């Protein structure tokens, strides 16, 4: 249901003009000196008669849609709408919806026929495909988040060939080149416009030293406590103020108090996917591999790993191993077991029976030599769990089985075929098809303790259920009071400290001064959902560090000598998508024109108070490692196509008008 505020058109326009007037004034100063920008003169320039010359097409009625609860996003869309309107070529309307209504609306496969421009935000990962596939792949029509039914076999093919196939799986350079083709193709076709990438921020007092932002919130504290891959380590020193702390100033001990912005819903890694739960779990658990800030993979609980085999197969090759199961009236597959893969030709919504690959079938296939990739992980020996058990291949295999039918199952079995124990300290992970993301995605799970998995009911690794989480991580669970606080203390037998950092990680080539494990004794975490309260607690000295404060308060912290504000570009991004299946939006020139009317710099400066980065290319820094051969060259190439440029936009619109 449309929100009430669309009832009076004139009111909304006045409001929008107010918004633009305010923002325009503020924006003028910050934009001064930016070549090619004509931010200020749009207000009375471009307007007027020339829009009408082009026959009946212009001025074109355009409806932009957005969820109402996100005021920043709404403001951004209002800015875009106003910018379009000022050319005289468009009559824009902005419709707002309550979030759930909005999601239901835009994910409806019929939505593409409406001819509207929706705006939504997504969060991407190290995988460059997370900035293109969700938006553009035809398999994501009616799902997240190909909202306007973009169905272009050529782009599907390009994106698939950048991720799947023996060639890209084995050759990272080729993969980067393929992605460059994707970005260039998308820039020409302009099905969507990514506006900006979000910036994540955190604020600490100056007792916390050596802190750096990690591009994903859920890893920000675990990354900083001990990350030899980037020589990253934080420590507490209440006598000296942090600023340009050096590794040689490092002091051990102390307790750090933090505040999380939400309750910890779950301590059971595969049964939760929310940021706060992962943030809490990351103190306790580790994975077979870890990443650096560019997404490169480093062996961690696995001492080393190698790609043993790759075979050029597609999912249809598993047909012989599949079991046949029934379906329910609602179109669900009727089995209690994990569906590793569906037969590509069967549809649970239409058929009474479908062929699916169940976990046992998957293992049988792998053992027969039917798999896309085989990665072998050689585990570190002498890694101790918090309960005294030693890490073995059984723990890894049990962990991978434990994921079945969990919240993480869909993304895990997106690439994973099965996990097979080879010997006490060796595990093979198989990918379904040759997949360039497999190296990063297959070993991504937090490794749990096999005897704990055996003892608890699925999903119940939780102190509220009386089951304290047991991992191999540097901190062990100490205390948790639901919705109030959470405490972890240093684990005495942490394996990297037993071995020494250079012994534990053969790849480590950092400074001799780098410690063998985290140096902070423990973390006390208060759970404080309200941003203002968190900010107050930080000012009052009740906590040392927190994140996610309102951007308006950040400036106060920035100007204070007692606090440090950290920011980093994350994978979060927002985009609008054009209704390419509805005329005249089937004309790429029209879409390019609107793209040129998106005032990306003004959006970042004024709507997000500078806490963001204009999307000159469709990928943020964190995905540039595997997503482009040369990030600078890519930006140089694509930036002119994404810059605010009224003249270019009007030129394109004239061409469109002339052809109609």
């Amino acid at each position: 249901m449309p929100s009430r505020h669309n009832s009076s058109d004139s009111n909304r326009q006045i409001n929008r003009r107010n918004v633009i007037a305010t923002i325009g004034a503020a924006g003028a100063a910050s934009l001064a000196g930016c070549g090619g920008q004509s931010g200020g003169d749009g207000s009375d320039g471009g307007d007027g008669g020339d829009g009408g010359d082009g026959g009946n097409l212009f001025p074109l009625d355009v409806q932009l849609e957005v969820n109402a609860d996100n005021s920043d996003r709404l403001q951004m869309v209002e800015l875009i709408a106003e910018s379009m309107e000022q050319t005289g070529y468009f009559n824009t309307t902005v419709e707002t919806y309550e979030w759930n209504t909005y999601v239901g609306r835009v994910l409806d496969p019929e939505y593409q026929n409406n001819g509207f421009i929706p705006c939504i935000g997504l969060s991407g990962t190290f995988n460059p495909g997370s900035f293109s596939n969700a938006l553009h792949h035809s398999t994501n029509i009616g799902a997240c988040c190909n909202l306007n039914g973009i169905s272009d076999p050529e782009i599907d093919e390009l994106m698939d060939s950048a991720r799947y196939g023996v060639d890209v799986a084995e050759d990272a350079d080729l993969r980067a080149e393929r992605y460059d083709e994707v970005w260039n193709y998308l820039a020409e076709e302009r099905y969507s416009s990514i506006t900006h990438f979000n910036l994540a921020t955190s604020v600490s007092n100056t007792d916390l030293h050596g802190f750096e932002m990690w591009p994903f919130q859920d890893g920000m504290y675990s990354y900083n406590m001990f990350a030899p891959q980037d020589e990253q380590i934080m420590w507490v020193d209440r006598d000296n103020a942090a600023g340009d702390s050096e590794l040689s100033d490092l002091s051990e001990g102390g307790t750090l108090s933090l505040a999380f912005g939400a309750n910890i819903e779950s301590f059971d890694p595969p049964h939760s996917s929310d940021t706060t739960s992962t943030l809490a779990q990351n103190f306790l658990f580790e994975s077979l591999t870890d990443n650096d800030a560019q997404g490169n993979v480093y062996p961690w609980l696995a001492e080393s790993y190698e790609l043993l085999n790759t075979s050029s197969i597609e999912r249809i090759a598993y047909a012989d191993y599949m079991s046949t199961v029934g379906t329910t009236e609602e179109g669900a597959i009727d089995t209690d077991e994990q569906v590793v893969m569906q037969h590509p030709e069967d549809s649970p919504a239409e058929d009474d029976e479908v062929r699916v690959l169940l976990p046992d079938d998957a293992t049988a296939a792998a053992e027969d030599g039917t798999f896309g990739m085989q990665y072998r992980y050689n585990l570190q020996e002498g890694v101790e769990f918090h309960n005294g058990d030693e890490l073995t291949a059984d723990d890894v295999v049990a962990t991978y089985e434990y994921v079945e039918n969990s919240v993480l199952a869909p993304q895990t079995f997106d690439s994973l075929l099965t996990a097979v124990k080879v010997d006490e300290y060796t595990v093979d992970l198989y990918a379904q098809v040759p997949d360039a993301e497999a190296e990063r995605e297959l070993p991504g799970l937090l490794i749990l303790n096999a005897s704990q998995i055996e003892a608890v009911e699925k999903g119940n690794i939780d102190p509220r259920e009386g089951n304290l989480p047991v991992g191999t991580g540097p901190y062990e669970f100490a205390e948790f009071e639901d919705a109030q606080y959470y405490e972890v203390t240093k684990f005495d037998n942490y394996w990297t400290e037993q071995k020494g950092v250079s012994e534990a990680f053969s790849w480590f080539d950092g400074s001799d001064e780098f410690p063998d494990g985290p140096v902070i004794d423990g973390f006390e975490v208060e759970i404080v959902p309200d941003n203002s309260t968190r900010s107050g607690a930080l000012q009052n000295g009740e906590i040392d560090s927190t994140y996610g404060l309102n951007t308006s308060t950040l400036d106060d912290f920035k100007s204070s000598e007692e606090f440090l504000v950290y920011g980093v570009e994350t994978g979060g991004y927002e985009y609008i998508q054009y209704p390419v299946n509805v005329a005249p939006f089937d004309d790429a020139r029209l879409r390019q024109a609107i793209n040129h009317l998106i005032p990306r710099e003004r959006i970042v400066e004024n709507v997000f108070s500078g806490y963001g980065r204009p999307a000159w290319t469709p990928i943020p820094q964190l995905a540039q490692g595997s997503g482009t051969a040369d990030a600078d060259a890519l930006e140089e190439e694509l930036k002119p196509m994404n810059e605010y440029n009224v003249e270019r936009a009007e030129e394109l619109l004239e061409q469109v008008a002339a052809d109609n």
Partner: protein
Amino acid sequence: MSLQRFILKRTLSIIPIMFGVSVITFGMFHLTPGDPVTQLVALNPDVSAAEEAALRERWGLSGPVWEQYLDWISNVLVGDFGLELQTGREVSDIVWSRLPETIALGLFGWAFALVIAIPAGIYAAINKDNLGDTISRFLALSGISIPNFWLGLMLILIFSLYLGLFPVLAPSRQSLLSPEMLWYLILPGITIGTASAASIMRVMRTSMTEELNKEYVTAARAKGLPERTVILKHVLRNSLISVVTLAATLTASIVAGSVVVEVVFNWPGLGREFIDAINQREINVVMAITLFTGFFVILANLVADIVYAALDPRIRYD
């Protein structure tokens, strides 16, 4: 009608009211678009339609609405509010674990309201229309008008951040009845109780003024009773009738206010859980808290009715 019969009749009337509350509660959450599955699946490209349907089935969100209602209500009647969908925890456990916190905060706010409002009301009525009365009426009007989230933030700003008298965060690892906790309760208690205090004070003043004009007061004074006895023994008792009923019904506004106040003061009670649950689309939790709150408010009204009837015998024969 005897008092016993009146109580019985009023108590039985809870049943249809609660039924109505359950239907409305259930209807509200099932007729609004979006359920926890939508929330979970919405922005996750990895979940297929078949997986989505399976989730709906597992969480009892498929099938016609009336069928879902019957399933739900039959479980609720035996005290089973279902599971929190994403974590699989018992909803009733969650509600019970948060309840003491909310009761403590509510009682504190309520006590604060009474302790402030009754003397202030008496004072205002006795000194009707002079400066003290005007000031207390002005304060009462402000108390009613100030939104409690704003009042809470202002109290934190002044008393915690500027003056440093109270911590911003509730002391963790303390039992609810420890001295630190009671000290901490002062600001949220004031926040939650202010609006109620203001209403009670105004009613107290009005009913006291009314009583003071009655003949029995003149008679008592004429008898030569000291003014103190006249006020505290005769007038106060009679004017308290309406205050008692108001105070009982105000528990509803205290419960409602706790939602905002608990968020601002980071108080781990039902109100904060309610907000969390709404954001997570945890319908079972939201419905349980709504139903529970509804039940509580109905109960408070019942108590008010009964107390009123007990204090004023005429009410029973209405």
